[in-house]
């Protein structure tokens, strides 16, 4: 059990952790989510004492590991850490990476260390890479080796610091499946992640971090579907709804498409649906709304609903009436109309945004 009591970490110019309080029970699998810069990584680095907290206490199995004179290596032996950047030992090959600490720290005989190493390699599916060096592996393979290296030390707690953030999208899955497998082993796990579906699938608790502390602590269902507090609600909504405003002809449309791509993968939108969304967005912005964009800002909202597998793209803007069926690029309008489920225009002279175009895909 880990207790965090008024934990604080301040740097000269910033204070990522102001007052963190939590009780982490044995066997908990906790996802730590939140906007960037809210101290998620700092929190788990403090728990492992890679960063020394500037205030408060961390009580691990009844012992305050922040107390002066406490040998932090004792605490670290109960905890393993998986880094965003893998940090495999560059001078050792895969099996040596897993054996080294067993030999140096646990004083296991070489044969035993090797046997444990091979068992763990099998578990992460990399027995064939035994004698490769880290720079010969893909990112996903490196992270799986790093996980095996951590497991070899038999930790009670495993801390994951954005384990898939440095990976190619194609490699995220292999690492996630290894972590998912671990979540069923009764080990306590804390995972800092941006992959919300993954977080939701494997954890029993979610810490939403904001304003220098754990802003909301609850089950995944509560935090994702029924958040209790304002900032959590906004954060979760932002995960589900993508919003941005095209503020003129100089707007970075290519950048917006990248954002849409990120949104799609975050919400597990199929690649076919993603292709349609991209196409619709392009037709809308590059062609149909081109004359509007030059005059007024256009607000775009993209929202995906899981149940019906529908995506709704809304473009709203002020100014005089602009019905794409009448005013716009005819050809593009016909193309768009033929590919989407529905396409509608609504004009309300009294509203702030007088024009609203809804596309359902």
């Amino acid at each position, binding site marked *: 059990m880990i207790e965090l009591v008024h934990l604080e970490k301040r740097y000269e110019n910033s204070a990522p952790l102001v007052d963190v309080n939590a009780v982490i029970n044995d066997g908990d699998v906790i996802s730590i989510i939140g906007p960037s810069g809210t101290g998620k990584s700092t929190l788990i680095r403090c728990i*492992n004492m890679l960063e020394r907290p500037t205030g408060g206490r961390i009580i691990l199995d009844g012992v305050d590991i922040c107390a002066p004179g406490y040998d932090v290596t004792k605490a670290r032996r109960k905890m393993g850490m998986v880094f965003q950047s893998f*940090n495999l*030992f560059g001078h050792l090959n895969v099996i040596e990476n897993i054996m080294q*600490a067993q030999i*140096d*720290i646990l004083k296991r005989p070489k044969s035993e260390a090797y046997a444990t190493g091979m068992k763990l390699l099998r578990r992460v599916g990399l027995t064939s890479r035994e004698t490769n060096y880290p720079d010969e592996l893909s990112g996903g393979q490196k992270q799986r080796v790093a996980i095996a290296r*951590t497991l070899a030390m038999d930790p009670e707690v495993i801390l994951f610091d954005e384990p898939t953030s440095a990976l190619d999208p194609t490699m995220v899955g292999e690492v996630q499946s290894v972590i998912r497998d671990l979540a069923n082993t009764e080990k306590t796990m804390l995972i800092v992640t941006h992959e919300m579906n993954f977080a939701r699938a494997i954890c029993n608790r979610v810490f939403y971090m904001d304003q220098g502390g754990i802003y909301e602590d609850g089950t995944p269902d509560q935090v994702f579907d029924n958040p209790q507090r304002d900032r959590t609600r906004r954060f979760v909504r932002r995960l589900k709804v993508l919003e941005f405003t095209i503020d003129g002809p100089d707007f970075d449309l290519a950048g917006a498409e990248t954002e849409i791509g990120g949104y799609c993968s975050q919400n597990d939108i199929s690649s076919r649906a993603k292709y349609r969304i991209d196409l619709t967005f392009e037709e809308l912005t590059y062609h149909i709304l081109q004359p509007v964009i030059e005059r007024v800002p256009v607000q775009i909202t993209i929202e995906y609903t899981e149940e019906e597998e529908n995506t709704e793209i809304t473009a709203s803007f002020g100014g005089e009436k602009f019905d794409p069926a009448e005013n716009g690029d005819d050809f593009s309008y016909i193309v768009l109309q033929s590919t989407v489920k529905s396409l509608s225009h609504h004009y309300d002279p009294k509203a702030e945004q007088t024009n609203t175009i809804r596309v359902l895909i």
Partner: protein
Amino acid sequence: MKINNRVDRTVLVKLGQKTITVLTMSLILVLVAGLLTACGTETEVITSPEQLNREDAKIGVATDAPEFALVEERFPKAEVVYTQDLIAAFTSVAQGKMDAYVGNKLNMELAIYNGLQGVRLLDGTIGEGNVSAVAISPRTEIPDLKGKINEFLKQVKEDGTLDDMRSRWIDKRDMAMPTILEAKDPQLNLVVGTTGLSEPFTCYVNGELAGYDVELAKRFASWLGASIEFKLYDYSGIVPAAQGGDVDCVFANLYVTPEREKALEFSNPTFIVDIGVMVRDTGSQNGGGIAAFFSSVKESFEKTFLTEDRWLLFVGGIVTTLLITVLAIILGTLIGFAVYMVCRNGNRAANAITRFCIWLIEGMPVVVLLMILYYVLFERVNLSGVTVSVMAFTLIFAAAVFNMLKAGVATVGKGQMEAAYSLGYTDTKAFFNIMLPQALRHVMPTYKAQIKALIKATAVVGYVAVQDLTKMGDIVRSRTYEAFFPLIAIAVVYFILAAILIWIVNKIEVRAIPGRRPNGDDQKKG
């Protein structure tokens, strides 16, 4: 676990290639240098000193020698050039780089007698001659040393010993050193500074110091009932050495000049040196052809290495150079490493002190650092030149090792340490087991380059009375009057010594650093 035998073989093959390259390069050097010295250009034949008084004439004199005033007076139009040592002066005249050299006529006669080519002496002498005498250090602890030397000089003059010495060394050119009885139960130790660079006054014969002044010094020590110890300096370094108290007195055919008299006391004269003029001898230059060239090469080789077993001098020099280099490498590595360990965790005071020291050490020329240590810092402490040299080069190497480690560790990155900590390593264990093996991989190429730089840098230790390889080359050149062979030989030896040291380091590297090397054939395994 993988341990690479392949590396050993690669190293050996590389070493083999290196040796061949070194040998080929030196052969080319030898041939080119030989051909260059064989060529010459025609100039006006000089027969009388007056011809030298023209504006485009360059006349050489020894640094700090009274001849300067003489040349200024006699050849006001000519340009005066200072020369470091006799052999450099003579070679410059022979090669036409200087039109004439004005200096000790005896040195010149002996050089020509011993086979110096391409120069001749003008008839007669100029000026009244230079008075040379024994210089006495103001810091000597022997009471009334000057009075004792004068008393001794008076005695040897009266009993004919001085005349006998003069006839043997100067007139008969007999370079044999007589046996002089050493004092029994010496109460004193007389430290004598000399140069070994001025035949027949102080020079190496059969690998031993000999000459008129050396014999005189030994006789004086015996007369005084003291044991004797010689220290060798350049002419430019010997006065400061005596002034600083490194030696009690100087027996080196040292001329009495007004400047020197301000710094040191002089005894009554020991010799009056005639001043002669040496000019280039265009007549004796010969094209000679290949056969003549090779026979002259053979002759030079014999003179440089075989005559009087002079190769032993080179061996002695090599031993000294190696001693200084190897000690500096070992101590420098240990100290640099120790200092790095102290500074590693960011102790502010330690880092500030270290930064300052490194700034100081790296900021000045090696030779200046060496001389500051020897003549300023340890002026009052009786430390040998070798000890001070080892200290200086240890400091230099330690600074380099410190910087290398810092850069190497920075290259590996903080993440490796964090990974080790999170596996339960202590700070020290993480550093030695995880960080260092990786950092060393980045450090080793620079480390080897530094070793090569170090062994070459030690060539300046001659400044503090150490007879290293380069200094031994100077000493041999001062007898053979040939630049060619000693210099080429020294260059080749430096190459070989560096190759040997690197070979040893490679051996150690393969043994001591586990895991994979960052570059090399073994990276391809899979």
